[in-house]
């Protein structure tokens, strides 16, 4: 076994306020390793707004601008413009938003920025609900999940919004998914993203033990299972067209991912079967897109 290739530098100090086993903690740590110190983070309301710690302290080792919930895309546009006008074209501006601030309230600003191809990296770390305010449903909450606003008597009735499709539709130069279970992949993607100009979108899967009602030690395993069961595939899309889809070495049934999670405990076998069919269908669609993109590129 050889040591990992992860860079040594820690740009996130311990002592932050993430829960035990917080997936967002891993997400930030890996992202910072991939981005390096020449980074400015623009952070709308999300778990990390609190995790970062109270004034006058901050766990994140690069400059952070806390901004209003729906403004990640717009504030980041402004910061980048300001930097460039001051003569700094090297510092990377990174919007760091949760699923709430991306899929829902922040979608307009993100879409506007993507349409303008603003030169920043937009990161959505997705724990599939409004966790910071106490586990309410978001557009990212998967079908059937319990949250405080989708109780078990009436769990989430609509499927998870496909945010990657939305960003791909804007034809930005680089859109990718990443997962805290695959840190080397995530870090490589951030390093790659840094070298691209224009709007780059990174959708990170970050399980939340508190909101998912799972044991804290399972956080990484759940992220891994999400990819191995194809619930959260790892893929990159270049210029809205060319797909590169990672095919897991072993594909597991969705039930393995669902069973350890308290937020899915009320599901019946029929629900899980339906979930499996949906996952399979989405996977076939994804592979078809990959093939179509390759055919297009070959022209």
């Amino acid at each position, binding site marked *: 076994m050889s040591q990992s290739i992860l860079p040594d530098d820690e740009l996130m100090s311990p002592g932050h306020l993430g829960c035990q086993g917080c997936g967002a903690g891993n997400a930030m740590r890996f992202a910072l390793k991939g981005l390096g*110190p*020449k*980074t*400015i983070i*623009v952070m709308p309301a999300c778990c990390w*707004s*609190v995790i*970062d*710690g*109270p*004034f*006058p*302290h*901050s766990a*994140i*080792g*690069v*400059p*952070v*601008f*806390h*901004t*209003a919930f*729906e*403004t990640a*895309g*717009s*504030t*980041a*546009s*402004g*910061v*980048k*413009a*300001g*930097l*460039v*006008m*001051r003569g700094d074209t090297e*510092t990377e501006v990174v919007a760091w938003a949760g699923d709430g601030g991306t899929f829902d309230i922040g979608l*307009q*600003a993100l*879409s*506007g920025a993507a*349409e*303008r191809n*603003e030169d920043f990296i937009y990161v959505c770390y997705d724990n599939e609900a409004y966790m910071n305010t106490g586990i309410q449903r978001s557009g990212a909450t998967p079908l059937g999940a319990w949250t405080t606003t989708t109780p078990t008597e009436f769990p989430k009735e609509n499927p998870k919004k496909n945010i990657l499709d939305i960003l791909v539709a804007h034809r930005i130069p680089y859109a990718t998914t990443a997962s805290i279970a695959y840190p080397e992949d995530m870090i490589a993607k951030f390093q790659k993203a840094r070298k691209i100009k224009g709007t780059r979108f990174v959708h990170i899967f970050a399980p939340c033990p508190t909101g998912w009602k799972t044991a804290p030690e399972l956080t990484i395993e759940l992220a891994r299972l999400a990819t191995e069961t194809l619930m959260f595939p790892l893929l990159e899309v270049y210029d809205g067209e060319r797909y590169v889809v990672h095919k897991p070495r072993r594909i597991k049934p969705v039930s393995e991912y669902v069973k350890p999670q308290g937020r899915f405990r009320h599901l019946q076998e029929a629900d899980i079967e339906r979930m499996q069919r949906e996952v399979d269908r989405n996977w076939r669609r994804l592979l078809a897109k990959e093939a179509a993109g390759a055919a297009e590129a070959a022209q």
Partner: protein
Amino acid sequence: MKIVIEGNHAVSYGAKAADVDVIAAYPITPQTQVVELLSEMCATGELNAKFIKVESEHSAMAAAVGASAAGARAFTATSSQGLLLMHEMLHWAVGARLPIVMANINRAVGPPWNVWSDQNDSLSQRDVGWLQVYCESNQEVFDTVLHSFWVSEQLMLPTMLILDAFYLSHTSEIVDVMEADEARKFLPPFQPKQFLDPKDPHSFGNLTAPDAYYELRYEIDEDLRRGIELMKKADEEFEKLYGRSYGIIEEYRTEGAEILLFTSGTITSTSRVVIDEWRDRGKKVGLVKMRLFRPFPIDDVRRICRPAKKIAVIDRNIGFSIGGIWAQEIRAALYNSGYHKPVFGFIAGIGGRDVTPETVSEVLDHVDHMDTPDQDVYWIGVKHEPVHSAR
């Protein structure tokens, strides 16, 4: 260089003279010409600035906040619905202590849709902590852009300069504009003390408990108050260089006046004519032009009102159920003055209804014939159905 331009373009020229770095704006009637001319200036390189064509006003202010936080000189313009949409971010600019300058074209708020002049949009932002300056002429608009940056960048608080829809925005006047290198003699480049800098990383705006938030707000209040002296100083410095001055509050023929009429915006211009007429008839009336709304010049108002007998205020706005906003502020300023004067509050011009010399005369008439107001608020010219005697 003197050119004939509409108020909106005066704003554009002002921003260009201020050599702004980042503009983020969204079009709305009657502001559109501001951003159209600025777009052209950026496109031709006349103005070296990044123009972010955001997808809403909320995003416009968010982008301006971001740019300013990065240490750039940021500017935007809007009106009415757009200003309201920005409301959350107006607070943000203040809390983050960012010297953004914005031009707001005073336009009535909907529903129903109304594009004409009315001050409710800007005045309903009175408590956010922005400085507010109300302009009477296109020259003043141009000059105030520069004053605003000068003051904001020292206070680290944002400033809104305000001009009436159509009366100024779309009306051409002679404006003596200057280029950026000339304006630089007055307004130096922006040198922020705190900004987003990877070489000296800090976080801005972390969660703050009551044990510290209180003091941060106290600081804003203290600093905003200092804006009064700074605005005066800006005006003085500007006058030394360019010969034009407006003060923060202007007295027009107030010597020995028994009735003082307070106005703001273009109503002031109309009122000057009426005051002249009344003075010609031997009436002891004077005009006070309110230019600085925030920070409110409490001491100046108290000083000015002391020798008068009665105060009249024309508000092109309404604070529902409590009266015109300028009137409320003036009353509040006078309350602890140690003396009492009756303040007559008049509402006129809302939604762009014309305020003519007749309107102003009507106001002065009212006040002339009464010792104290018998109503908190007088709505001038409300149409009522005539009463039929045969009912």
